[in-house]
């Protein structure tokens, strides 16, 4: 009884703060924690009947059947492969180019010009994938697109871009870099600007040239940020950017072998093919592996350098 009394007193003392966290907490319950509980339907044969709760309770248990079906198809392999390979390429090339571009921007003598370049390359970050899809289409459209027009002018045959899988890995990587490189390099540029200028002055006095300064001052000073951002990205390697793979490809069925990722697979299972059970199973597989990856990569970084870890 005494313990309960103390509890109530604590709650009373903190009631203003508890009121403050209430709205967002309700949001987290509705949009994060209830869906987590809802993953239970990946172990059921989901049938909608009556209310939300009753349809979950009344659906038949099927154990791991949904997962078995999922992994028996080629789909599981293809979507996992596509998701991981694309993200791995994005992380690696993205990191190298973003750091390089940040260094390029920071070394340009005319600061006003550098600011203009930065503003220009930041623009794609502000556009939705729908808009990017239109942009890409204006280049790749079979009968009107710019690329085919150039090809014809040069005497080559036009290509049906939206039904030729072999070109898409390259197109997707290019579009991704086009959209993200600007803002990634802006993050690194901000970090470069924060480096103590006296380090460079000291290096100059010691006779270090520009390249030596970049290698021995700029890059080491950026390493913690590179580690954190790469770690964050590796933790999300199981999550693909739905818009990139859905809008930019115009959801073209002939391209699925190289453009189907976990996120598009789950979406189609829900909205197009109606395979709710398998689709939920794929989603849970994604969340679960994603969770393990964040925890592991964080643990590894923690062992090397505690300050660079996320938690």
């Amino acid at each position: 009884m005494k313990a309960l009394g103390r509890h109530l007193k604590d709650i009373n003392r903190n009631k203003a703060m508890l009121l403050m966290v209430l709205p967002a907490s309700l949001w987290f319950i509705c949009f994060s924690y209830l869906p987590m509980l809802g993953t239970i339907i990946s172990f059921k044969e989901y049938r909608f009947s009556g209310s939300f709760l009753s349809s979950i309770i009344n659906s038949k248990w099927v154990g791991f059947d949904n997962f078995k079906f999922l992994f028996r198809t080629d789909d599981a392999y293809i979507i996992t492969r596509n998701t991981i390979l694309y993200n791995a390429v994005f992380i690696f090339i993205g990191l190298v180019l973003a750091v390089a571009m940040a260094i390029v921007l920071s070394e340009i003598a005319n600061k006003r010009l550098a600011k203009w370049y930065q503003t220009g390359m930041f623009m794609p970050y502000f556009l939705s994938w729908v808009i990017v899809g239109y942009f890409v289409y204006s280049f790749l459209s079979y009968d009107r697109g710019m690329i085919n027009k150039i090809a014809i002018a040069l005497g080559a045959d036009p290509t049906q871009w939206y039904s030729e899988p072999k070109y898409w890995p390259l197109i997707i990587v290019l579009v991704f870099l086009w959209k993200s490189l600007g803002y990634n390099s802006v993050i690194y540029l901000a970090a470069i600007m924060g480096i103590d200028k006296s380090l460079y002055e000291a290096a100059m006095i010691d006779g270090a040239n520009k390249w030596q300064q970049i290698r021995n001052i700029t890059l080491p000073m950026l390493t913690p940020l590179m580690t954190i951002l790469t770690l964050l990205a590796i933790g999300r390697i199981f999550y693909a950017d739905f818009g990139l793979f859905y809008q930019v490809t115009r959801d073209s069925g002939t391209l699925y072998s190289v453009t189907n990722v976990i996120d598009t697979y789950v979406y189609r299972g829900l909205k197009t093919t109606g395979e709710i059970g398998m689709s939920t199973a794929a989603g849970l597989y994604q969340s679960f592996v994603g969770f393990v990856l964040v925890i592991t990569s964080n643990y590894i970084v923690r062992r090397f350098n505690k300050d660079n870890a996320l938690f």
Partner: protein
Amino acid sequence: MASLAKSRDFHRLSPVWNVTFNLIAGLFSLACVFPFLFVMILSFTDEKTLARNGYSLFPEKWSLAAYEYIFKAGDQLLRSYGVTIFVTVVGTVLSLIFISLFAYAISRKSFKYRTYFAFFAFFTMLFNGGLVPTYIVTTKLLGLQNSIWALILPLTVNAFYIMIMRTFFSTMIPDAIIESGKIDGAGEFGIFFRLVIPLALPGLATIALFSTLGYWNDWFNALLYIEDPSIVPLQSMLMRIENSMQFILQNTNNPSLGMGVLQSMPQDTSRMAMVVLATGPIVLAYPFFQRYFIQGLTVGAVKE
């Protein structure tokens, strides 16, 4: 190696490298802006020229027909603009309230349960239920199918923004201010709204801009939850006219406009004109706000 005399400013490259760096950054920057300019040119192209010559940077014949048609027949465009503006404004205000209240509370050392609630938010960054359960909760339990709230609520709170704001509160708001408010007899909410919020405006501006951008550019929630053409936002409308312009006539109030208009409508150029009209506000505004985004991106990359 550059001699010391030549590079009095230690932060200077040799001229050759400076030109190379300018070329690299300049060309990439141009490549980033180019597609928008290209689409803009297409929207001002004469439809027949476009049909004959394809998408071209230097059209034989310019025309304003696309914009004329949109403003004549495009009630749907205005409607969708209205939906997007409503969703963006209401959503951003709600986001700011929910996020700043939560973040402030877990930034206060006097709040006994701060670690529980911080973890409650943080855990959602590590694990989630996935699309299907979220969809089922949103439509079957919350009943948001075909409701404008389905465009607003799913994007309202975000653990990442809460972490940014918590960092902001705990580093930028001195305890002394809060203590002085207590001595003056203000309650927790009084302190928050009268003392803390005015000091936190730069942080709030960053969150508000991220949130505004998120709402303006959202099409995914409309793809999942919205069928009713009267609440289709801009980005989603652009998706729906990708293959057929039919959609923009669904909401027309003018009965004399029917299939006839659709047939005479310059379809390709109108589509491009709509892309320009939907993107225009952002392209015009972002250069003035970019420093807030940079601030947010850099704060977000640093923990606690």
